[in-house]
């Protein structure tokens, strides 16, 4: 049954025919083209499988719940409400000229995608042990699909943010059109960490607990709830060295400021994203052969 389900998800399969011995010798260019063709075909297959798994993840997550997809909206609203009360009302945190509620909700919306993406990725491989035992497919698809499923949730939360921006009459700039580019950066960074923790969690189940704790600390060291503009340059520089902190700051800047206030830090975020993404894949591939033994 599972095997059939897996086969359905892989709607196209690679046909590996036993022709290699019979085929004529290929020139280096023909061989390269053939490898590219196979690689491209596999990439398409992987993308389709990832999409199917991500959609399935969202469907099963909300299938038997009364509020269904509304949870994707309720969660950030409640979080923003609590933090908004604590920081805005009790501590009088200011984010002028942006209303603090909007400022806060922007940070929470983008942060939640990152944090939820990672927490979903952590158990994506270890939670699918039976599927892994039955059929072969690139294992890296599992954490990728987990992160993309949270991206679908994020799109709903983004709708809430847009409503609040309109309600509070907060001016936004044309540079908001840069958000997709910044989201690509954030997705790649989240995927990189996701691959790393998904693989490590197969070997050490403490990773799940550890990540929950780490993300809590990470959130307070990122400009989610406070603006960095009024901080001392030295402290601000250290906080913006944190790649996700820098990405969040850029996302807020392009929406509400119209330009990047600290453009230099975009380059460090770019460099860290590239490193984390590639290193994540590297670690995942390194641990992948051990999955069947451990699980």
């Amino acid at each position, binding site marked *: 049954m599972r095997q059939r389900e897996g086969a359905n998800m892989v709607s196209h399969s*690679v046909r*590996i025919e036993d022709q290699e011995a019979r085929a004529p010798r290929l020139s280096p260019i023909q061989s390269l083209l053939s490898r590219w063709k196979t690689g491209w075909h596999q990439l398409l297959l992987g993308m389709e499988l990832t999409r199917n798994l991500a959609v399935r993840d969202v469907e099963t997550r909300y299938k038997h719940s009364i509020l269904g997809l509304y949870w994707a909206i309720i969660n950030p609203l409640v979080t923003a409400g609590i933090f908004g009360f604590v920081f805005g009302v009790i501590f009088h945190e200011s984010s002028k000229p942006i209303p603090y509620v909007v400022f806060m909700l922007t940070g929470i919306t983008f942060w939640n995608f990152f944090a939820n993406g990672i927490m979903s990725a952590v158990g994506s491989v270890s939670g699918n042990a039976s599927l892994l035992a039955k059929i*072969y497919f690139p294992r890296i698809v599992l954490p990728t699909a987990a992160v993309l499923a949270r991206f679908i949730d994020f799109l709903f939360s983004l709708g809430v943010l847009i409503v609040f921006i309109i309600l509070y009459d907060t001016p936004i700039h044309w540079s908001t059109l840069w958000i997709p580019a910044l989201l690509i950066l954030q997705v790649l960074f989240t995927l990189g960490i996701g691959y790393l923790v998904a693989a490590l969690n197969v070997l050490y189940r403490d990773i799940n607990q550890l990540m929950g704790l780490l993300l809590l600390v990470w959130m307070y060291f990122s400009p989610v709830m406070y603006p960095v503009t009024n901080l*001392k*340059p030295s402290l601000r520089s250290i906080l913006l060295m944190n790649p996700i902190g820098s990405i969040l700051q850029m996302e807020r800047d392009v929406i509400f400021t119209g330009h990047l206030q600290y453009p230099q830090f975009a380059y*460090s975020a770019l460099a860290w994203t590239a490193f984390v993404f*590639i290193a994540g894949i590297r670690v995942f591939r390194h641990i992948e052969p051990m999955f069947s033994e451990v699980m």
Partner: protein
Amino acid sequence: MVEDVWIRPEQEKRGEEMGLSAWTRILAYAALVVSAQILRWGLFVAHGFDLGYYQQGMAALVHDGLGARSTYTGQAVLAKNHAWLLVVLAYPATWLGTGFLFLVETLALASGYFPLMRIARAWTVPREVAAFVGALYLLSPLVIAGNLYDFHMSVLAVPLVLYAVQALMERHWGQFVAFLVLLTGCGSKAAIAVLMVALIAAVRRQTWWVGLAAIGGVLAWMFWELNIRLDRLSALGWITVPVSHTLTIRAVLYALWVLAPFLVVLGALSVQRKAFPWSFYGVLALLYLGGNMLSALPASTSPFDQKSALIAPFLLLMLLDVAARDRRPWPFQIRAAGIFATMGLLVLMGFDFYHSAWKVRPNNTMAIEQALVAVTKNHPIYAQNNVLPHLGFIINQVPLQRFNLAHVPIGSAVIWDTQFHDDTTPPSVYRTLSALMANKRRARVVFDKGGVVVFDVVASR
């Protein structure tokens, strides 16, 4: 037979793994060093004479074309070090900002790992030794320090030397010439490195004719374009630098620091193989080192100055050459000792950074940031060494060192942190500024907070 499963050939997978490993190492280097560079800049540790000079020069090149003048030297921008690649970098850099310069420099240096590995493969160096040499490159304090201390065109020559040697080994003549031409774009400080690459080609039996042609071309470039005369080559071509006629203890210590990790490896290897390994590339490195040792400029005898970075590729090629002729994997202890010595030098780099940069940075950073907002950028802006890089790509930034009341244009602005003394501004300038500020008819103060003052010069007399 047809299989409906997802199978990847094992050989292809292994090749991909090797590529991923290399990229992981390179990107780790890039992420760490770019962050450190930006942190230096953010904490006002970056220097105008290392970064501001290039920012102003590039802005001037974009604004005024090839004849643009530097406010730092008073000369044409390209006349100082003939680094014509500045023109190529100027347009994207003025658009994309200082971080772009940091990223380009760091990625270029990190990419030097690739040719090093390709050369190791061409020379059939054992895999562990190749990985060890690659690690030494990415951990080399000579390379990291040259990269970390803001921006220098000459540092870009480090990977280009390796790319040129790789092209030579693979007999790709077009690429070899292209890399030599690119090397000339790194300026006169890379001139000797270009000559040495040509020399490498000349001493090889199969490529002597390419080498002779390259030496001819390089010498012609040095004599006509760089205007280097034979009498000034007495210091092996350290063109702009006067020669010291006494060998100081500092210079000897400098040589020891630079060579330490390599001497540790070669020493341990010679004990084990009972013969001291020798390489032509080592001679080139020693020649380069000798030139720096003879220099009368103190900065040239620092392992952490950008002038020392160009010794690294020749030292690493020496190790690969020794390994290629040895043909046996080196014991783990020898490789660990090499890495340990390199890490020791990195710690030393940290101490050097603490004393030479961290302890001599301005502390009123909040006030300086506000002062930078208060200043208008239409007229010349005079500022201290650590403030200049924060003015960005503008043609009007001038180091305070060049402040001369007789020549200062009316309307010029001065940003002065009165609680900070940089090493580049003479005391006479500070005395002039104090006198000027006291005279309200000659200077109009527009900002005064936390010891940081911004004033406009409204009359010179």
